[in-house]
């Protein structure tokens, strides 16, 4: 190695030396120093998480300027890695799998912590090699409300949840959630999370103090996965979860108590012609302050159309329980909101591999104000 270093620098030397005979430096020219950029942790940004399906071993999250949609950084996410953006901390989390020789050797799974200023790896924690190698659905990796525990959804295909104690810096437990999928942490109780189950219930888990074991309680059945399944993606406001079904029924679910309880349900396209249905990977985004749910909608919906790109974005007034606005959109399969004084929406056009910025206008309308090519197969968007 030492020898190599010498040779390397010999080359550099040489390059400089050889250039010199024909060169003079202007006295007033100060050479630019090559540095490494940093982001302000407070800089608003959009994370566009790309599974890069044609090179699935090399996924990445593009960090975008929300105004210009220009790239301001990149975080590698490996082979179908999951991505989580916490609310309170200057960190983002990646759960991924590596094979030591790209596609060969023993798989190892890791929870990685990246600094949001330097985008450098701060910490990596080995987790059991069972995490779901899946498209990037937000509920597949979540933190407890106090940040003490990270929860990673597993699938072998049997399902369980890896619990990582971030204080101890290691995996503290694994909680089976058979027949269920997705993690919805309680807002008030740091040791509680719920999961969505194929039998039409939610199950709420209460962890012990060490994050090793959990007891579970099932809710009443509130949906039928055969007849009208719920999208895994939910929008969360405190202990209130907003789910939407394939056929467009909105469910307001509280996870504040011992078990999840449905507080309200209503069909969002009740009186609208055209078989409009929600669709996509991340089919809705909540503006909690305004009480408005934005949903990706396609018409002519039918069994199997639940990932079809949207033709319109509908604004659902959650208090009035009715459509407040309908706006045309490029084909879109993912929607996210960047909160703030003037919140904006962001979408993914999967056909053009583009990210779209929408401004929110009065009365539930949205307007495309910017479109930029980003990556190849962005599934998840996060605004922060």
């Amino acid at each position, binding site marked *: 190695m030492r020898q190599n270093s010498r040779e390397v620098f010999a080359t550099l030397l040489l390059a400089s030396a050889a250039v010199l005979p024909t060169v003079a430096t202007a006295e007033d020219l100060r050479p630019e120093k090559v540095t490494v950029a940093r982001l302000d942790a407070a800089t608003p940004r959009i994370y566009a998480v790309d599974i890069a399906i044609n090179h*699935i071993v090399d996924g990445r999250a593009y960090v975008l300027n929300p105004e210009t949609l220009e790239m301001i950084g990149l975080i590698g996410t490996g*082979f179908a890695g999951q991505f989580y953006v916490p609310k309170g901390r200057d960190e983002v989390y990646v759960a991924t799998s590596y094979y030591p020789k790209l596609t060969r050797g023993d798989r190892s799974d890791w929870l990685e912590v990246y600094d949001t200023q330097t985008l450098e790896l701060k910490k990596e924690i080995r987790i059991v090699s069972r995490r779901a190698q*899946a498209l990037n*659905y937000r509920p597949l990796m979540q933190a407890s409300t106090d940040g003490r525990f990270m929860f990673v959804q597993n699938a072998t295909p049997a399902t369980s949840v890896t619990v990582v104690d971030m204080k101890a810096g290691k995996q503290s437990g694994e909680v089976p959630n058979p027949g269920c999928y997705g993690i919805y942490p309680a807002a008030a109780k740091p040791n509680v999370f719920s999961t969505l189950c194929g039998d039409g219930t939610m199950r709420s888990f209460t962890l012990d103090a060490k994050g090793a074991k959990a007891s579970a309680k099932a809710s009443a059945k509130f949906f039928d996965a055969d007849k009208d*399944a719920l999208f895994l993606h939910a929008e969360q406001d405190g202990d209130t979860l907003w789910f939407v079904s394939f056929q467009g029924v909105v469910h307001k679910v509280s996870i504040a108590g011992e078990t999840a309880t449905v507080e309200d349900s209503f069909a969002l396209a009740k009186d609208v012609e055209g078989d409009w249905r929600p669709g996509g990977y991340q089919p809705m985004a909540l503006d909690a302050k305004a009480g408005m749910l934005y949903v990706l909608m396609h018409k002519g919906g039918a069994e199997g159309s639940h*990932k079809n790109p949207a033709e319109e974005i509908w604004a659902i007034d959650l208090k009035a329980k009715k459509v407040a606005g309908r706006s045309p959109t490029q084909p879109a399969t993912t929607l996210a909101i960047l909160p703030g004084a003037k919140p904006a929406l962001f979408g993914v056009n999967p056909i053009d591999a583009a990210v779209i910025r929408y401004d929110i206008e009065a009365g539930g309308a949205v307007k495309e104000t910017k479109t930029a090519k980003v990556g190849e197969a962005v599934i998840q968007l996060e605004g922060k």
Partner: protein
Amino acid sequence: MLSLFNRLMSKIDGATEIVVRRSAQLHGRRSALAHIGKVIVGGAVLPMLPFDRSEGLRAHAADAEPTDQACEYWRYCALDGFLCTCCGGSISSCPPGASVSKVTWVGTCQNPKDNKSYLISYNDCCGKTSCGRCLCNFNLRERPGYRMGVHNDINWCMAEKHGMYHCTVAAVVGISDAG
């Protein structure tokens, strides 16, 4: 019933078959059912986007007769992934050097030539880097991961030692009553 079960099993090599049978004895069918929920038509294949497929499901008209390198080929009515027929495999063989996934799911597709419905086994081929060709995506009867057996946004090579996803085959393994 047993007959179909055996035929499905026959796709798997001897050693694996023994494990499956042992597994069946250990768990019993009811335990398995309880484990991942009620399944109607099992499994799925791979994370995939409906690129170029935003028009949704097309009719498989007999007069169109797409080849097995087209997404619209009748056997692909529920396939989600790269077609192995475009990657050096065939409709029922993995490309050279890939390995057949041990887990698979069975869809039901109608053959336009005889209008019968066939059971199609969608096996992933694993252990090679992603093929990148002929990306297809149909989501008929697909469900989120709480119905893991019919979820297709996940790598179904996940159970393999070499779990990299390469492409997907579509083998006929039976005839449906519906057909």
